[in-house]
């Protein structure tokens, strides 16, 4: 069973739909026991960073996730806001601390070219900076993924960056550190490449 962390933000049904399409059993929940019994976790979410952390805290999920992910090494995949929450902090609206599993700050996406619009919405290439990451099994380098965001993660100093995307300048688009995985893009909305990547996490992580 795949635990999809419900913290009251965003479209969980898309993620659940993709998970079940791939033959796994999704369970959308904020219940600690259910998350504990899940084989793997997905932390989805769209919305604002401060709300994300506040909602996790309100549901008592920060301690639960720290325990499951850091102590018990349960694999987790953060997507979009869920990916940013893995970081140390964000500047969205105000400085807010994150889960801190990936040592990198989240800052406003400032494309080098003033012609580039923000939010960054649409299909863009993913450069695999660590092609050996299991997420990329069967996924060609420079495959297109669907992005929609205004903030982005800086480069983590610990080598956990596995993929980048370029929008005016390169930014961190995918990370892996042990059993912690994250993608700024939406694999559940990125057609075949996205489904392959998601399946890699579900099957191999």
């Amino acid at each position: 069973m795949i635990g999809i962390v419900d913290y009251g933000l965003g479209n969980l049904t898309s993620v659940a739909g993709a998970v079940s399409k791939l033959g796994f059993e999704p369970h959308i929940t904020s219940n600690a026991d259910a998350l504990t019994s899940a084989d793997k976790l997905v932390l989805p979410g769209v919305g604002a960073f401060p709300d994300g952390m506040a909602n996790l805290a309100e549901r008592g999920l920060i301690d639960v996730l720290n325990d499951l992910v850091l102590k018990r090494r349960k694999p987790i995949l953060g997507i979009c806001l869920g990916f940013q929450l893995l970081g140390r902090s964000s500047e969205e609206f105000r400085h807010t601390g994150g889960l801190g599993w990936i040592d990198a700050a989240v800052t406003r996406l400032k494309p080098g070219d003033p012609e580039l619009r923000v939010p960054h919405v649409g299909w863009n290439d993913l450069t695999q900076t660590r092609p050996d990451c299991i997420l990329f099994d069967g996924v060609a380098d420079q495959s297109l993924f669907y992005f929609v965001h205004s903030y982005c993660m800086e480069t983590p100093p610990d080598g956990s960056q596995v993929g980048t995307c370029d929008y005016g300048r390169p930014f961190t688009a995918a990370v892996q550190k042990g059993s912690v995985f994250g993608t700024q893009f939406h694999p559940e909305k990125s057609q075949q490449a996205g489904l392959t990547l998601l399946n890699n996490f579900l099957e191999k992580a």
Partner: protein
Amino acid sequence: MLRNRLITVLTFNDGTLFRTKLFEPDYRYTHNFVDSWSVDEIVMLDVTRDPMADRRAFYDVVTQFARECFVPLAVGGGIRTLDDARRMMAVGGDKVVVNTGAVERPELITEIAEAYGSQCVVLSIDARKSDALDGGYEVFSHFAGNPTGMTPGDWAREGERLGAGEIMITSVERDGSLQGYDLTLCRLVSNAVSVPVLGMAGAGNWKHFVEGVEQGGLSAVCTQNIYHFTETSIASAKKFMEKKGIPVRL
């Protein structure tokens, strides 16, 4: 490089798919389908006019699409409150499209943006040439029936300030015309805001997509004329755009 998007817009009345001409239903092309692998994004609009109508049939269609289409789904029609938006997200929408509801109560944009983030709010603007505004363009609400006194540029800017993550501009006069996008209107709006702009109404051939991007400044070109889009035509349209130098996802 970020690709320009080709978006298919599907309109539904009581859960039935149809296209429109001059904002009136035209059911001739109901029996068509979307090439769900080539399309970059899908917009589903419930244009059932009765405000008290039962929208369950539409919700069911959205859920079906959400199950099979692994691309973003923007969903709208009749959204007046945050609860309406929540409902659209719950049945499978990734974004919501607001139009008349935001004209009536602009803070609706902010309410949805605060709950789900700006990237979830598409402000749809219907505009036509109007004598009221010195022969310029005027925004119309309520299925293009109600003049608002606002110019599309001003309303787009205000929408962005209130939290809209994308603007969708529709030319009322070009709806179903196949004469191409109203490029002046598209450019006016894309110059007014720094968020992505989606252009809608008028596309009749693939050249129109290229013009929409190059001359209209559009990030995404939308089409509702689904009879052009059976099986492989989205893929061919994108190949054409690429040949003309527009970055697209093939």
